[in-house]
């Protein structure tokens, strides 16, 4: 094996050129190898993700109470606490009482964050990590669906 300069920068210019070529030409894939350098650029498979309906305004996808179904994914190291059931989201144990948590609070794993009521059953949702409450994503007394993010927590550094 020859010695390779691991510190050599990636050939990004060439990659860009190949990307351009793939896009402009309409071909499906280009691979180039020269010595230790290998670049492969593939066109995106044409298949449409969710191409349907909604030429008529009535066909909008509504999650109950207009809560967003797919918020931006966990990033910046935030952790989402998601609803394990379909139901109504309550921030406090009972009407008139204080919310379990507020933005800025520090919570520990296992601490209750809210209730999701489903068929008269009160499901206490607990924090699955310790950390700071960064955002409350659902509306009090609003509907939430399965897997819907309810809170963003910033986990404690381990």
């Amino acid at each position: 094996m020859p010695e390779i300069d691991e510190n050599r920068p990636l050939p990004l210019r060439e990659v860009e050129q190949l990307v351009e070529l793939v896009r402009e030409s309409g071909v499906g894939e280009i691979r180039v190898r020269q010595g230790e350098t290998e670049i492969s650029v593939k066109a995106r498979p044409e298949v449409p993700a969710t191409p349907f309906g909604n030429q008529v305004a009535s066909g909008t996808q509504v999650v109950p109470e207009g809560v967003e179904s797919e918020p931006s994914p966990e990033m910046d190291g935030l952790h989402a606490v998601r609803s394990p059931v379909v139901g109504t989201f309550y921030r406090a144990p009972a009407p008139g009482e204080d919310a379990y948590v507020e933005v800025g609070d520090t919570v520990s794993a296992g601490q209750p964050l809210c209730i999701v009521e489903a068929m008269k059953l009160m499901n206490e949702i607990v924090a699955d990590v310790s950390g700071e409450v960064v955002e409350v994503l659902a509306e009090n007394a609003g509907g939430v669906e399965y897997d819907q993010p309810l809170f963003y927590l910033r986990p404690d550094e381990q």
Partner: protein
Amino acid sequence: MIGKVLVANRGEIALRIIRACRELGVRSVAVYSTADRDSLHHELADESVCIGPPPAASSYLNVPAIISAAELTGADAVHPGYGFLAENARFAEICERVGLRFVGPASGTIARMGDKAEARGAAAEAGVPVTPGSEGSCESVDEVKRVGAEVGYPLVIKASAGGGGKGMRVVETEAEIDAAYLGASREAGANFGDGSVYVEKYLERLRHVEVQVLADSYGETVTFPERDCSVQRRYQKLIEESPAPDLPEDVREGLMAASAELVGSLDYEGAGTVEFVYADGEFYFIEMNTRLQVEHPVTEMISGVDIVAEQLKVVSGERLVVPKDALSPDGHAIEFRINAEDPLRNFLPQAGLVEVYNPPGGPGVRVDSHLYAGYRVPPYYDSLLAKLIVHARDREASIRRGLRALDEFAVSGMETTLPLHLAVLEDEEFRRGGVTTRFLADRELESEGGLLRLTRT
């Protein structure tokens, strides 16, 4: 008219119900599992709610989640489609209790007809012929032997709570009864949580015929011309047609009259199907499905009646308005179930990316499907990809139209039952009409130049 319907199902039948809602100006709510985020029923409904993870037990069978979704979205009614919760009396009862209208008969009716032994009793009471066999379920091996002595062998032992061939044993002689009774009962217990079984004379060469019924809450019942669903594989229907080929007129009338009698005796509401076996000029009741069936479009094509729309009208308290001429068949219709199964590998279920999807068009062709190019068939649910229904002036023309449309039907990315259907349509006995439920079991599938062909074994 009801204002909003929650569709407690997925796939093509969810789409079918959503389409009916749209055409009636009723809002629709889809529920979906996380495996169905890219599904058309989720896309095309007016609203949708994610109800759980992929396994059906946690999503499409998750009663609390579905009831909660209905409450959150303010739905007035729940349409269960077929499968999943469609014949779950407890679910219907919960709907009734929380004030949701269940699109189907009362929970008591579902429970009664869901017990196959009890359903036999109800049919016999209504004067509908039932296969010779036990009255109600058999509590012991001795009872089975007594029935055997009475009606003769072979016998079939069936699960009272059963369906789909589970908890079922055929016995040829009395000596086999002990083992078969035990086996059937155990299997029934394991599959349905209820080990009780009943016994019928086993008819070997029979056709499966059934009658679609619709009843409103004012006591009006209509029965449609019969469907023939004899092309089956392991008790799963593959091809259904209406009218049944080569059926004597008096048998047709008998089937419709018997179905009307039974349904009339039940205080029934909504759509249902009374299933019969037909052999040697006689027909016998086997069971009643208290729900919409996969093959309902066959009846829609020859009657012009939109059965799902009628279901929604009935549940809204409207009266059935079915024109008289809808009750005699207009032409002939055949439905083909296009399943994600590999006919050459023992019908191994397929899942994955649908690369190409181009359904056939032109005259007399209807496609009910939730597919689109780029859709991923999830591995969690049943294998039905699409239903192709063809309609033409007579059976001969329908078969030719079916060949044309099946040939045009482009699906790639997985194996399907499309080539099997082409092979069935090329089979001489099928073309003559009136095959028995042993049709497929009696044949072998061979691959020949990329095509399939059936050969009698």
